[in-house]
């Protein structure tokens, strides 16, 4: 149709990869919104996929997966909330490892900002993988272009990431050499006493987010001599008091009321003192600052044109009394925030930089038009682009003062490239993909307690946080880790990978199922393999031997491998391991892997490690030694400290020195090795083995009617042959193949394969025991047995009830509700008669707990085809009735 067609020009350029551009020319007089869809039928169904997302390895041949980068207006939320949607990097990697037909292909968008929306659909009902570029906006009589880049590589997902990193290296590398050494533990804190700071230091903290020092969110610099902190959060709760002014009163009236409740206990002197004391303990101080959310009362009074509006023209609340505010330098708020940033840095020149909170908010602002965004025919402004424009003006303010900034989020690569350091606040491991080349990264909030967070954080190269927030009305006093010993146990491991680069060659590691692993190149040029298992929650379970193979192709110079060391989060200390070379692999056997192990393959460095065995058998008193080894090409002058004994030693290149290690009768011994440019301080143990041990390999998760195999290993650690009685307890499970007893020779092991029938749905436990007169060993094997076969013999692993109907446009907190994140809100959700959670509120919509109610595993396992779901009102007066 002349005059109204979209004219398309396709341009292909071929260099190291293929760049494929569609130029769309709008010959009409109407604005157009076009979706360009690319189907790859040649790659149908017989390849694996990788997407840098919360679900990076989709099982797309089992069920469809849809990913989007800026495809959905709520992508900024989905980055946190919905692992099936959010993409951190707009790219799809497809690969197939078949010997005779191997392939690896990555299709990606240009990462130059603003990146156009990029979607992926993996669905066996399509002819092949689908990539689409939706919401392409073409103005009348104008044009727009969209490009795909296609790169081919080895048949694995890591080379796909390597292709992306090689194209855009500065996105993934430290912004400057000064920031990388700050990699390490972080703390979110208001001013804290010296004893607490010292504890953070011991745990490996490097920097502190100095929070809860401002009068309210939106006011970070001012001339008041003393003030009440975070008045907006306090008002959120105190406005429900009987004598409070009505909700909806002005800012001044609300704050005047708070003046009657709280003392003015913060001052500039107190902030400076805290920064000073952090520095004395060797920690860096980053001042809290947030340009993307502001107290609503402040916005309405002073920056009414800068509130971000949704498609219905409503403001968007994202935390308590805050609304999302556009930081574009074109707006009043953006200019004000830039001035405030400058003044804040001038007021506290001793601070090391800025902590930029909530940098991930990348929704569409329908109050503005950025010239390129469109959704369903409506123009809008992309918040992430406004943040980038703010950054471009803020960066010179920071840099000319020598300051850095660390961001909470973001979760897309365009923003992440600008941050000196990244923080994932709520356990979004997707952020790991932004730090592939040693970008500074920290985080917390992963599921589980501190111990589990440390374990999973190690896998991502991500350092766990702690909090100290006595100035925060949402929290009480300090919240110590649930297991205070865990940070101490894991610090030596984290120290080795504080500065790390991902190994992105194909198939660098081979480990058995049930063990998660990653491999990093350390800053010294050595290689660290992090291994962790979540399966063992009992005190005694372990894998008797964990075989690990590292491909020589993963290492820079495998021929120069000098030694392999083991560090464990379960058995403190450094241990020397044997290794063998086999057909292009380095093989290592990790003894008694429990939860966390790390093996270091070293070609250079100076190390102290225990030789002679990690464990002692009953009745044995063998001599152990600390071996000091210099694998550098230089002569090294070092000091070795064993408990209180210090010894200065000079080592020639390649030289090793041993000295007796007398294991203390109680607990491990402090070891410290200090030399030119390094200091390693760790607890060294020699663990005593019991007479009898029982370990197992395999898991008991499945669907009713299935059976599972377990391999048991019974170890006799004594010097005499033993007849060991075996027993099991687990009435919901059928056990076959377990003998009543087994005879095990002195210092030997016997393996036994048993079959477990999964008879009854639910969460059970199989308790296995091996007993002699010399002792008892137990293994507790969790069994999650599903009533429903969800995917071709696969049991569900997690479930939740989505609350899209209620949030984020849902109901507010009930009157009188108090407590952090709605803990005191009592609108219960019942599933099959069991209370499983509460309904969230629009007052706090960003917390993912409120979008979903997780289904506890015991209930998930028993779900059949019908279920009863009930939503209860808080009380008879609750306006939110279902």
């Amino acid at each position, binding site marked *: *149709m002349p005059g*109204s*067609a*979209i*004219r*398309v*020009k*396709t*341009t*292909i*350029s*071929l*260099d*190291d990869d*293929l760049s494929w551009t*569609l130029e*769309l020319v709008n010959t*009409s007089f109407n604005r*157009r*919104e*076009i*979706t*360009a*869809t*690319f*189907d*790859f*039928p*040649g*790659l*149908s169904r*017989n390849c694996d996929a990788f997407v840098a997302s919360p679900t990076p390895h989709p099982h797309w041949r089992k069920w469809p997966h849809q990913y989007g980068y800026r495809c959905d207006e709520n992508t900024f939320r989905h980055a946190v909330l919905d692992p099936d949607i959010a993409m951190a990097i707009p790219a799809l990697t497809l690969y197939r490892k078949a010997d005779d*037909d*191997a*392939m*690896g*292909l990555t299709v990606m968008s240009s990462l130059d900002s603003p990146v156009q929306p990029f979607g992926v659909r993996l669905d066996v009902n399509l*002819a092949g993988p689908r990539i689409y570029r*939706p*919401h392409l906006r073409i103005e009348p009589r104008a044009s727009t272009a969209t490009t795909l880049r*296609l790169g*081919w*590589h*080895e*048949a694995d997902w890591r080379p796909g990431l390597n292709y992306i990193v090689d194209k855009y290296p500065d996105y993934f590398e430290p912004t400057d050499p000064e920031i990388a050494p700050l990699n390490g533990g972080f703390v979110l804190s208001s001013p804290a006493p010296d004893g607490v700071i010292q504890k953070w230091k011991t745990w490996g903290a490097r920097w502190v987010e100095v929070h809860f020092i401002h009068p309210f969110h939106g006011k970070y610099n001012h001339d008041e001599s003393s003030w009440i902190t975070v008045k907006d959060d306090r008002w959120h709760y105190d406005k429900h008091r009987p004598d409070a002014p009505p909700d909806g009163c002005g800012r001044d009236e609300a704050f005047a009321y708070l003046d009657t409740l709280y003392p003015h206990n913060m001052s500039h002197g107190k902030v400076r003192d805290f920064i000073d004391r952090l520095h004395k303990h060797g920690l860096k101080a980053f001042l809290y600052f947030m340009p993307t959310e502001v107290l609503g009362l402040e916005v309405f009074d002073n920056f009414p044109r800068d509130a971000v509006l949704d498609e219905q023209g409503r403001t968007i609340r994202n935390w308590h009394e805050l609304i999302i505010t556009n930081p574009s330098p074109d707006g009043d708020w953006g200019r004000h925030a830039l001035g405030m940033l400058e003044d804040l840095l001038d007021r506290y020149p001793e601070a090391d930089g800025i902590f930029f909170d909530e940098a991930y908010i990348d929704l569409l602002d329908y109050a503005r038009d950025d010239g390129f965004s469109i959704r*369903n*025919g409506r123009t809008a402004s992309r918040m992430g682009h406004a943040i980038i424009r703010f950054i471009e003006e803020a960066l010179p303010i920071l840099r000319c003062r020598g300051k850095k900034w660390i961001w909470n989020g973001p979760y897309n690569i365009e923003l992440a490239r600008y941050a000196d350091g990244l923080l994932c606040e709520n356990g979004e491991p997707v952020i790991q993909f932004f730090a592939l080349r040693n970008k500074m990264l920290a985080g917390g909030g992963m599921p589980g307690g501190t111990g589990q967070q440390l374990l999973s954080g190690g896998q991502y190269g991500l350092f766990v946080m702690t909090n100290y927030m006595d100035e925060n009305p949402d929290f009480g006093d300090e919240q110590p880790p649930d297991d205070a010993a865990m940070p101490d146990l894991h610090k030596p491991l984290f120290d080795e990978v504080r500065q790390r680069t991902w190994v992105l060659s194909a198939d660098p590691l081979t480990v058995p199922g049930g063990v998660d692993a990653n491999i990093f190149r350390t800053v010294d040029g050595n290689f660290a393999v992090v291994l962790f298992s979540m399966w063992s929650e009992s005190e005694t379970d372990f894998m008797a031997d964990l075989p690990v193979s590292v491909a020589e192709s993963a290492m820079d110079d495998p021929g120069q491998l000098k030694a392999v060391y083991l560090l464990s989060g379960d058995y403190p200390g450094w241990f020397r391991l044997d290794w063998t070379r086999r057909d292009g692999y380095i093989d290592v056997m990790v003894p008694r892997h429990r939860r966390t192990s790390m093996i270091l393959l070293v070609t250079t460095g100076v190390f102290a490690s225990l030789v002679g065995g990690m464990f002692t058998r009953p009745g044995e008193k063998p001599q152990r030694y600390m071996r000091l080894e210099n694998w550098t090409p230089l002569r090294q002058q070092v000091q070795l400290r064993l408990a209180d004994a210090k010894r200065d030693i000079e080592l020639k290149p390649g030289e090793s020195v041993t000295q007796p290690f007398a294991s203390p009768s109680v607990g491990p011994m402090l070891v410290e090795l200090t030399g030119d440019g390094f200091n390693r301080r760790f607890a060294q143990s020699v663990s005593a083995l019991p007479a009898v041990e029982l370990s197992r390999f395999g898991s008991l998760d499945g669907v009713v009617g299935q059976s599972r195999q377990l391999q048991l290993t019974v170890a006799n650690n004594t010097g005499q042959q033993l007849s060991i009685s075996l027993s099991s307890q687990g009435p919901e499970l059928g056990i076959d193949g377990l003998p009543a007893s087994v005879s095990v020779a002195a210092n030997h092991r016997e393996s036994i394969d048993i079959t477990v029938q999964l008879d009854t749905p639910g969460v059970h436990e199989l308790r296995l025991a091996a007993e002699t007169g010399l002792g008892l060993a137990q293994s507790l094997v969790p069994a999650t047995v599903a009533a429903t076969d969800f995917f071709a013999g696969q049991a569900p692993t997690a479930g939740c009830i989505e609350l899209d109907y209620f949030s984020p446009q849902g109901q507010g907190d009930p009157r009188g509700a108090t407590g952090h994140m709605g803990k005191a809100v009592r609108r219960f959700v019942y599933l099959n008669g069991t209370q499983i959670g509460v309904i969230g509120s629009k007052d706090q919509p960003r917390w993912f707990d409120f979008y979903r109610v997780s289904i506890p595993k015991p209930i998930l396992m028993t779900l059949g085809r019908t279920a009863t779901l009930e939503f209860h009102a808080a009380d008879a007066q609750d306006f939110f009735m279902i």
Partner: protein
Amino acid sequence: MTSKTLNDSTRLASDHACVEIRNGDGALCFLASGRTGPNLLSAPVAITLTDVATGNTFPLVGPADILRKDDTSHNACLDQPYA
């Protein structure tokens, strides 16, 4: 352009030939499906344009089409439903 012959790891699918790149003196091929030639891209890819306002679609490239390197153009009549 650098002369480059890729190894087996670059094969895309059993029903398509090897991916190949050759220098400017020879054939220039990519995503080859047996219909390759100098400066041609034989793409096992289908491209469709969709007008969001009307839902009309236009199949820009079919799986068997051959795209020339730099002069391929189409008129996508998105104001008419594609029949």
